């Protein structure tokens, strides 16, 4: 098998044993990026020389006798929302075009320390606002399963890069589903860790009470290895949890559900759900039962209000966070002809530098926080957040994990929902509750929908700091399904045509 099809764990082992060098592994992936990214457009920035220099350093560290972790030398695609001192960081926005941050995000710094080789920065919906990556100011990313469809979003460059074998691993951030939803629609694994389990320092803020960095990979164990590599307490993030990282790698290796209580969220079915998605989901629930799990149905009545609450809370926080883009200290400044005031230049710059979805959300948040509307909108949304937390508490008294489809439908065609915000927002229907309460959740592939042959994701949710449970159940499902399929789901994806060298 070629290097690009290997798992991160396998690549790490090959590099550790000396059978392959980090440079060879990096070269193989750079070649793949050159061959297919013209079609997929997962990356916004790749600098071959800088990648090879990182890989050489890992080989030197190893040669110098340094003890390195299991992912040392493994390439990773990094979402363009994480600051990187040696690469531009744009968050998919024109307002940050060409910006070179003066510091590394904590996640970036930890990737470097663990010896991961950052291949480049991946495309995303502008400021992580979207579910399709169509809101990027730098063009759309295409789903490797069907190039006419979206790769999900906002971390769509990261999901596409992993699904297209351009990298075995990638990073994302999940504010309302921006890791789990793209993972589901590209047939890979994506985790939203417990809020506060991974540091927000150096991610360009969207909604600070929800933003959570997490991993993408082609299998559950690889996702767990990456999760472990960048998670844990960070003094630079005051909402970071000062506790041990849950034993996610051990849980992924354990991969059993015997005796575990699994709750099916009753509300996440019915109207608006694609038949093929529900079929694969129901079969997977039966599979869990056959593996020894005790399955019950659980009612979470307030989940019906999660989507409207989210679209008040997230834009409110965004309208405040994005006030920093003021054309004064960094980023774009337009129309500074010596006659205009700072305020005029600010408003002209923001109008030119932000895309339509970002403007919609800033204005929606400004509205929800305005005096006279605050109690009726933001205040009520915060009450809904309490009710959703109570639903989860009640559910987790009865069961160890909750399951649902990750998304109501498979990947939709590019353009279909681009100017229909409410239709776009429905893509995150099942993922949003876990963001509002901060609990851990994962999406693992569970088959292809009959109608369109596109991937379906199973979402597994666990309580706060129950990250190990989602990996344990996810790995058990993965093992059983791969036995049935005779290999990973991604092996069923069509081969991408490689551009001539």
């Amino acid at each position: 098998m070629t290097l690009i099809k290997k798992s991160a764990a396998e690549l790490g082992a090959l590099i550790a044993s000396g059978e392959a060098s980090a440079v060879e592994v990096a070269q193989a992936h750079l070649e793949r990026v050159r061959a297919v990214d013209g079609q997929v457009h997962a990356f916004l920035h790749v600098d071959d020389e800088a990648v090879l220099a990182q890989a050489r350093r890992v080989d030197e560290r190893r040669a110098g006798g340094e003890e390195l972790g299991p992912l040392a030398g493994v390439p990773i695609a990094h979402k363009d929302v994480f600051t990187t001192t040696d690469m531009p960081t744009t968050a998919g926005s024109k307002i940050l075009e060409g910006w070179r941050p003066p510091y590394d995000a904590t996640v970036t710094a930890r990737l470097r320390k663990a010896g991961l080789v950052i291949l480049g920065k991946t495309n995303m919906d502008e400021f992580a606002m979207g579910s399709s990556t169509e809101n990027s100011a730098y063009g759309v990313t295409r789903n490797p399963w069907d190039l006419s469809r979206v790769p999900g979003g906002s971390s769509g460059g990261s999901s596409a890069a992993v699904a297209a074998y351009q990298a075995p691993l990638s990073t994302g951030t999940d504010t309302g589903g921006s890791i789990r939803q793209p993972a589901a629609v590209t047939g890979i694994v994506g985790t939203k860790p417990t809020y506060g389990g991974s540091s927000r320092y150096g991610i360009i803020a969207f909604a600070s009470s929800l933003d959570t960095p997490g991993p993408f990979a082609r299998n559950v164990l690889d996702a767990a290895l990456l999760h472990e590599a960048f998670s844990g307490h960070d003094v630079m993030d005051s909402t970071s949890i000062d506790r041990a990282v849950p034993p996610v790698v051990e849980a992924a290796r354990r991969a059993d559900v015997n005796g575990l209580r699994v709750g099916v969220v009753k509300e996440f079915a019915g109207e608006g759900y694609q038949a093929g998605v529900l079929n694969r989901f129901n079969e997977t629930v039966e599979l869990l039962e056959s593996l020894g799990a005790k399955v019950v149905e659980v009612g979470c009545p307030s989940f019906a209000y999660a989507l409207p609450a989210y679209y008040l809370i997230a834009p409110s926080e965004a309208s405040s966070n994005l006030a920093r883009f003021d054309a004064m200290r960094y980023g774009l400044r337009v129309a500074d002809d010596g006659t205009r005031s700072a305020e005029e230049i600010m408003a002209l710059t923001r109008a030119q530098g932000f895309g339509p979805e970002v403007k919609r959300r800033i204005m929606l948040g400004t509205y929800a926080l305005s005096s006279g509307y605050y109690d009726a909108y933001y205040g009520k949304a915060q009450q809904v957040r309490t009710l959703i937390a109570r639903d989860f508490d009640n559910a987790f008294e009865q069961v160890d994990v909750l399951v649902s489809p990750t998304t109501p439908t498979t990947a939709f065609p590019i353009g279909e929902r681009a100017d229909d915000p409410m239709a776009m927002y429905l893509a995150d229907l099942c993922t949003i509750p876990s963001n509002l309460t901060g609990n851990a959740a994962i999406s693992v592939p569970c088959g292809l929908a009959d109608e369109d042959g596109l991937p379906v994701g199973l979402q597994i949710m666990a309580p706060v700091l129950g990250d190990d449970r989602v990996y344990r159940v996810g790995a058990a499902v993965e093992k059983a399904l791969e036995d049935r399929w005779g290999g990973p789901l991604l092996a069923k994806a069509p081969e991408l045509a490689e551009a001539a060298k």
Partner: protein
Amino acid sequence: MSAITRDEVAHLARLSRLALGEDELDHLAAQLDQIISAVARVQEVTAEEIPPTSHALPLTNVYRADEVRPSLTPEQALAGAPAAEEQRFRVPRILDEEA
């Protein structure tokens, strides 16, 4: 009845420091009306005694020692500035001329 008027949308744009054109305001007014009507569903939660949740985790204030530590150099801090002068951010006038 619409949830938000065109005038209110223009006012929101001013509050948001977004210099939007007339076409953009028309387009946004229709979309915001649709979105606000949809998210207004949260008002069905009428019980007054439900406490608000602003944050996923019950955190209290987090303090750090008040110690000097390395930070950005002036050059680093100014590296992305649209305009800089004498180790400062150079900004357009912030007051009206009469002021």
